[in-house]
C-alpha cells in the first residue's frame, strides 16, 4: 500500500481522537469507521509521530484494531462509561502541544451527537473544520486543506494552526488493521477526573430512527436528463446570497428561511 498523498511533515503534532465503534449489522464493537479515517490521515501526515487518544475504558479490546494500523501505542484517558469526556479531553489536550486534532464526524456508539469536536473547539478556542478530506500543505503555521461538500465537490480552505477537523466518509479509507501490531501495541492509560454527563443521566436513551428523506421528484424523460438530475447540484431556485448587508439583515434573512422551512415555529 502506498500512502504518499501528503508529505509527512515531522514537525507537525497531530492528535487523532478515536472512539469505540459498532458494526452496523451486528452491533459488535470495532474501530469506528470515521475515527479510523482520522487515524489514517494522521498517519499520512505525521507518520510515527501521530498520537492517538481515546477517552474511556483502556481494557476495551476493540481499541486494539487502531493499534493494528501500525501504531506503537494508544493513549487512553480513563473514563467511566457514562462520563462526559469533553473536559477530560480538554485538560489533556491543553497541556499537550497538539497542533492539529483529527476525529470522526460522529461516534457510532453512545450519544453519537457529533457535538464533541465542536464543544472541544469551543473550549480550546480553536477553529473547527468539518468534512476534512485532505491536508494539502502546511507551512508558516497555516494549513491548506480540502473540505468535502456534497456531490463530490471540494472547497479549499486556509486554516491557522492549531485547529480541530472532523472527517467523514469522503476522507481516504483507513488501512487494514493487522493482528500482529494490534496485539503488540500498547494501551497507555492516564488517570483523569470523571465528569458525570448531566444530560445523559437525566434523559432516557432510545434507539434512533432513520431520518425520513425528502422526496425528490424527478420528471426526467430521457436517460440523459435522469443522469443530470442525479448528479447536478440541487438548484433550489429560492437561494439567496447575502453580501455586504448588516449582520442584522443577514440574521433576519436566515431566521425567515428557517421559519419558511418549518425548522422554527
Amino acid at each position, binding site marked *: 500500500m502506498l500512502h504518499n498523498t501528503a508529505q509527512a511533515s515531522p514537525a507537525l503534532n497531530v492528535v487523532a481522537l478515536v472512539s469505540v465503534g459498532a*458494526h452496523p449489522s451486528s452491533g459488535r464493537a470495532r474501530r469506528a469507521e470515521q475515527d479510523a479515517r482520522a487515524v489514517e490521515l494522521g498517519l499520512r501526515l505525521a507518520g510515527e509521530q501521530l498520537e492517538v487518544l481515546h477517552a474511556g475504558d483502556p481494557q476495551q479490546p476493540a481499541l486494539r484494531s487502531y493499534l493494528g494500523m501500525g501504531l506503537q501505542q494508544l493513549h487512553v484517558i480513563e473514563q467511566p462509561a457514562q462520563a462526559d469526556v469533553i473536559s477530560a479531553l480538554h485538560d489533556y489536550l491543553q497541556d499537550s502541544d497538539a497542533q492539529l486534532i483529527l476525529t470522526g464526524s460522529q461516534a457510532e456508539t453512545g450519544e453519537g451527537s457529533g457535538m464533541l469536536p465542536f464543544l472541544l473547539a469551543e473550549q480550546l478556542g480553536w477553529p473547527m473544520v468539518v468534512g476534512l478530506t485532505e491536508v494539502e500543505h502546511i507551512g508558516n503555521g497555516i494549513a491548506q486543506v480540502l473540505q468535502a461538500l456534497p456531490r463530490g465537490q471540494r472547497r479549499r480552505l486556509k486554516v491557522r494552526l492549531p485547529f480541530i477537523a472532523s472527517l467523514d466518509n469522503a476522507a481516504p479509507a483507513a488501512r487494514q488493521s*493487522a*493482528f*500482529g*501490531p494490534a496485539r503488540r501495541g500498547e494501551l497507555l492509560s492516564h488517570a483523569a477526573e470523571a465528569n458525570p454527563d448531566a444530560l445523559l443521566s437525566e434523559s432516557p436513551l432510545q434507539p434512533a430512527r432513520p431520518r425520513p428523506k425528502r422526496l425528490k421528484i424527478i420528471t426526467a424523460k430521457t436517460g440523459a436528463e435522469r443522469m443530470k438530475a442525479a448528479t447536478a447540484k440541487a438548484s433550489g431556485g429560492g437561494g439567496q446570497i447575502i453580501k455586504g448587508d448588516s449582520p442584522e439583515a443577514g440574521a433576519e434573512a436566515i431566521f425567515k428561511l428557517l421559519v419558511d422551512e418549518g425548522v422554527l415555529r
Partner: protein
Amino acid sequence: MMLNTLLPILLFAALALAVVGAFKRFAMWRRGKPAEVDWFGGLLAIPRRYMVDLHHVVARDKYIANTHVATAGGFVLAAVLAILVHGFGLHSAVLGYVLLAATALMFVGALFVAKRRFDPPARLSKGPWMRLPKSLLMFSASLFIATLPVAGILPAGFGGWLLAAILLVAITWGVSELFFGMTWGGPMKHAFAGALHLAWHRRAERFGGGRSTGLKALNLDDPQAPLGVEKPTDFTWNQLLGFDACVQCGKCEAACPAFAAGQPLNPKKLIQDMVVGLVGGSDAKFAGSPYPGKNIGEHSGGPHLPIVALDGKALVDAETLWSCTTCRACVEECPMMIEHVDAIVDMRRHLTLEKGATPNKGAEVLDNLIATDNPGGFAPGGRLNWAADLDLPVLADKRQCDVLFWVGDGAFDMRNQRTLRALVKVLKAAAVDFAVLGLEERDSGDVARRLGDEATFQQLAKRNIATLAQYTFKTIVTADPHSFHVLKNEYGALGGHYRVLHHSTYIEQLINAGDLNLGQHQNAAVTYHDPCYLGRYNGEYEAPRNVLNAIGIEVREMQRSGFRSRCCGGGGGAPITDIPGKQRIPDMRMVDIKETSAEIVAVGCPQCTLMLEGVVEPRPQVKDIAELVAEVLIEAAPKPSVKRQPAETSA
C-alpha cells in the same frame, strides 16, 4: 597406465567435493526454523518412498518414468561400481561386465532424456537443464569405454594416450555434473535434495498412500513473535530442503489455473525463487517460463531479506502470492512432493497478520468475518432466513441428532439457498434425524485462513468447536467442501474431531441403504466438475459420480477431471483478492465443460456454483448434485416401481 592412476584421483576428488558441498547445502537448509523430523527412520524410508510414493506420481507420465528408472538406476549402479572398480581398483571381469551393463542402461536412458530435450515443452526449464542429457551421455559413454579393458573386451592400454586423454576429459565433465554438481547446485541437485526431502518431508503422512492437506496451525501464543514467513529463513528448514528438491519439470506450471489465466503466478518459478532466496542472488539465471507479465532478472533476495516488498521489488511480488486459488493442482502433480500451497499461505500470513496488506476486498471480508461471522457482513441474525418456511430442527432445542447439517455461508446467498433447500428436501425424504446449528453456526474460517488471517480463523474455529461441544451428533454433513475440509482436517489441531461427510457421500449412503425413492433423469447430457476441496483435498471422486449414476445420469467426463480437475477459480480467497490476468479461470473451466457438449454441469460446491454461473450465457446450466437428486425425488410414492418423469423443481 595413465588412466589407472588418474581415474581414482578424479573419482575421489569429485566425491570429496560432493561431500563438502553436501555439508554446505545442509547448513543452508538448517538456517530455516526448527522442525521435528524422524532423522533415522526417514533416511531408512527413502527407498520405499522413492520407489512407491514418488514413482506413483512420476508414473503418470510413462515416458519420463521409464526414462528416469533407466537413467537413475543405471547411474546409481554405475557410480557405486565405478568407485569400486576404478576407484579402489577392483579389476574383476564380473564387476566390469555389470558396470558395462549399468552404463549402457544409463546411456539408453540418457538418450531418451536427450530426445525429450530435443523440442522441449514450454513447462520444462532450459539453461543448465539442456546440458544435463549431454553430461549423462558423456558420463555413461566414457565410463563404458574406460571399463572395456576391465571386462577384458579390449586390451589394457588400448587407444594409447590420446583416447585416455579424451576419456579423462569426458569423465571429468561427467563426474563434475553428476557427483559434486549434485551438492553444489547443478541440475543433479534434485537427486541429493530430493532424497533427503523424501526422508524428512514436513508431511510424512503423505507417504504410503496417506493424505495430508490441512494447513498447519500457526502458533499464536507468543505476542512478540513475528507471524508468518517474511524471509526465507522463516520457513522451517525442511520446507527449504523441499524447495531445493525441485527438478523444474514444470508439471505444476502446466496444471496451475492462475498461470493459464495469465495471472502473475507460476508455481515452478515460485519454488525456484525460494531457492534463490535460500542461496541469495537474483532470478536472472532462471531458465523457465516467467510469472506472466513479469520480466525475469528484476527480482532478487537473500536468506535474511524480506521476500515481499510492499513498495518496490524484492524476491516475489505480493500479487504473485495472492493469485493462487489454493487448488493444490501443483502439489498433486509435483513428482518431488513439494508443498507449494503451504509456502504461499505461510507468506500470505505475514502479509495479512503483520503488514495488514491483504489486497482488494480482503480487508473488508476479514473485518466482516470478525464483526459478523460471515464474509459478506450480513446481520448474523439472518443466517436462517433461507429456511424460514422449512421448519428446520435446531440443535439448541433438540440437543442431539444423527446428522448435523452444516449449512455454511451459502445461507446468505440466494443462488446457494436453492441448493440448501434441495438438500433439506432430500434429507427429509429420507427421514434423516438431522438438525442445524442455526444462528449458532459461524463461518468455518476457511477463507480467513487462506487469506493468511490465522488469528481470525482460530477465533472462528474455537467458537465453532465450543458450540459443537455442547451437543451430541454422529455425523456432520455439509454441501460446502470448504467447510467440509476445514471441519474434517483443520479443526483437529484446535481440538475439534468430527466425522464429516460431504453431501454427495451422504446421499450415496442414503441411496445404497435404500432410504431414497428416486426417479431417473432422462437423456440428460451432464458433466461433473470436481471441486478442489472435495477431490484433491479429500480424495472424494467416486461418491458424486455414483450418485449421478444412480439417478440415471451418465457423466460425460471432461479431459481434466478427477485429480486433474481444473479449479473454478473460487478457492483461496482468489475472487476476493482478485488479481487481474488475461482471462478468467471460470471462463477457462467453462470451455472445458462445453467441450463435453453437456447441457448441465453438476457441481458439489457453493463456490464452484457461483464461479461457473458467473460465466456469461449461453453456457450449460449449473446444478448442484443435491438439486439434481431433489428433482427426481419421488416423495411418499406408494410403490417404488411406478416410474415418473422428472417434473418437480428443486425449490
